């Protein structure tokens, strides 16, 4: 046991003391924060109000267009020709023309703009018009007020379920993001740290120190020590990333917030000058999306997700690093690893590809099976967990993963023990199988 500990300590310290570890540790959160900051900044600073002129000949839409945070509607009563002529000189970004016969020919609605209007704006306008026309047509079709009321009730009760759905979508958005991040982190770490185990073993083999070491330590202890040491390096990296990211993020948010409060104050003043207090952009509003995200996140079972993440990170890493280790022991140098890498990397890459589908359908058959099979479960199960997975499925998948890595470790140890002392020989798959069954 003492020896395993010594091996773990060496493997850990050697890697943590490396400059590249330090660089990655600092660079990771910096990149994240830079990305996050840029996105946030861009989102905040590009909030400008678009003005849309509405020329409503039908007179049906007088108060139907509601101003939003980014849209301001102005009604005009001039003729279409003069409106069109005046449009280039006005401040408006778009001009909506609703002809008198809009109910008969809804397709005659026109949107004029200097540049192409955004899809968002277009659908917003269309929605309002469609809704209104629908209402009118329903009434025309003889649907009485009462029926309408009744159907409204129906619609209403549906709206409740819809709004529930809406709640679910908002948290399923968060689930998607978190599931995606977890899957990506596990995918990356299995690759990065698995390869590190492989390299480490090949290095020991090519530098021939392995013979000295295994005259003091059992080959299995050496392999296990290395795998655990590297796993701890990974965990250290994650913890440092989380701490640094949190610190940096809160610092950045503070800076952004202070900047924004200044700006919104300025904006408010400008708006006062323009005497449009109603359209003011209240500073508090900006916090709302953040609060929304936080709310959505807190609606997820975070302790379960973090716990499972650690479990599946370790499980997936142990399963694959043992196999990577076996490859490292079987070859003489890094260049020869390629031929054995494919069968190992394939399931990892597949899981990452499957993850995209599973994100869309977290309860499907594909999702179920791939989250149970140990080779894909570390990534797929982490994608599913934020959406909620029955406990028995998690338990089954965990048990199988534990069995899986015990199996791969056993196989790896058999290959390792023979491989590390085998020099100058090109190894084939057949040979590897033979090694496994050596007494």
């Amino acid at each position: 046991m003492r020896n395993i500990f010594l091996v773990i300590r060496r493997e850990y310290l050697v890697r943590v003391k490396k400059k590249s570890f330090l660089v990655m540790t600092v660079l990771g959160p910096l990149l994240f924060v830079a990305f996050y900051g840029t996105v946030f900044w861009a989102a905040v600073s590009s909030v400008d109000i678009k003005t849309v002129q509405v020329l409503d000949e039908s007179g049906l839409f007088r108060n139907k267009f509601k101003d939003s945070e980014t849209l301001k509607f102005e009604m005009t009563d001039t003729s279409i020709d003069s409106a069109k002529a005046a449009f280039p000189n006005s401040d408006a970004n778009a001009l909506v023309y609703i002809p008198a016969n809009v109910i008969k020919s809804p397709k005659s609605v026109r949107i004029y703009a200097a540049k192409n209007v955004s899809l968002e704006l277009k659908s917003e306008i269309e929605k309002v018009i469609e809704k209104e026309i629908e209402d009118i047509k329903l009434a025309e079709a003889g649907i009485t007020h009462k029926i309408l009321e009744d159907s409204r009730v129906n619609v209403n009760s549906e709206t409740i379920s819809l709004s529930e759905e809406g709640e679910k979508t908002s948290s399923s958005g968060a689930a998607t993001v978190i599931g995606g991040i977890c899957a990506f982190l596990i995918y990356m770490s299995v690759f990065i740290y698995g390869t590190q185990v492989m390299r480490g073993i090949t290095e020991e083999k090519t530098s021939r120190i392995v013979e000295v070491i295994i005259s003091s330590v059992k080959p299995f202890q050496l392999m296990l020590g290395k795998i655990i040491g590297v796993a701890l390096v990974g965990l250290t990296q994650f913890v440092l990333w989380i701490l640094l990211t949190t610190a940096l993020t809160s610092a950045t948010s503070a800076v952004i917030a202070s900047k924004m409060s200044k700006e919104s104050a300025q904006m408010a003043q400008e708006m006062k000058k323009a005497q449009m207090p109603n359209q003011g952009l209240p500073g508090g509003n900006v916090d709302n999306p953040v609060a929304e995200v936080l709310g959505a996140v807190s609606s997820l079972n975070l302790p379960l997700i973090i716990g499972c993440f650690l479990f599946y990170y370790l499980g997936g890493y142990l399963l694959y690093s043992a196999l990577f280790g076996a490859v490292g022991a079987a070859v003489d140098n890094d260049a020869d690893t390629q031929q054995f890498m494919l069968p190992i990397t394939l399931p990892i890459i597949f899981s990452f590809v499957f993850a995209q589908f599973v994100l869309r359908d977290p309860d499907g058959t594909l999702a179920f099976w791939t989250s149970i099979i140990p080779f894909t479960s570390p990534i797929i199960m982490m994608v599913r967990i934020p959406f909620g997975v029955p406990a028995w499925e998690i338990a089954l998948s965990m048990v199988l993963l534990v069995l899986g890595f015990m199996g791969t470790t056993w196989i790896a140890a058999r290959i390792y023990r023979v491989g590390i002392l085998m020099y100058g020989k090109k190894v084939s798959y057949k040979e590897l199988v033979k090694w496994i069954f050596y007494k």
Partner: protein
Amino acid sequence: MNIIEVRNVTKEYSSHTALDNVSISIPKGCIFGLLGPNGAGKTSLIRIINQITGPDSGEILFDGVPLNPNHISRIGYLPEERGLYKKMKVGEQLLYLAQLKGLSQREAMEKLKSWFIKFDIKTWWDKTIGDLSKGMQQKVQFVSTVLHEPDLIILDEPFSGFDPINANLIRDEILELKQKGSTIIFSTHRMETVEELCDHIALIHKSRKVLDGAKREIKEQFKTHTYFVEYKGHLDELDPIYQILDQKILEDGYLRSNIHLDGEANSNALLLNLLSKVEIRAFGENIPTMSDIFMKAVNEVPEA
């Protein structure tokens, strides 16, 4: 008392037999030469003693007890293929290897200090192994092999890669370790080293032990009962018990002959015989060198 008793050890690999029913005794406190051509099975035997691999059959006793993991800390092993962690610092690396052999950090530190002073390598502590020359790396590795003061030191071709000065330094260290009571196993095919240092030898050829025992006895056993003489004059009509094997003219005009003596004849009688006939410059017994013995023993083994 034997520190190592190899009893009927057989080790087979898928394609060949590395050791075939080998039994060897290694007495405590000696320098033991484990000889044999390349691929004879020396390394397999050494790996079994180091518990890197196990024998298929047979057993090994260490100090009278079947080999077990507790013996690891009592063995120091310098493999033929030297190697250290290239990117690790000398000091850290030696500390690590010493701790794997069961020393505490403090013990290891103390011992390392004295070795660093002895070898005058104090400035190396913080150097990276990869920055040292090959000879320097070998020195570091030698220190790591003997640092924990093992009872049994196994050295596989210990002098390869050393310049004569450092080879001498290492040789003196080996003799000192022997003085202190360690047993040393040399695996080598350099016969001059064996001649100089070993007390006992075993010769392995084609997976079998073909020869073992004290070096002195083996030399006795391989004696050819021939004497050489360098002389001027005519050497003929000797007593028939003296058989002149050859005659060779040396560069300076002297002649050199090898003479074989029958069992009961002795060298004094031969010398008297010669004195009356020729002018003798040199006379002596042909004692087989280890190299002769090696060649002879290996060539005598029938092709398996």
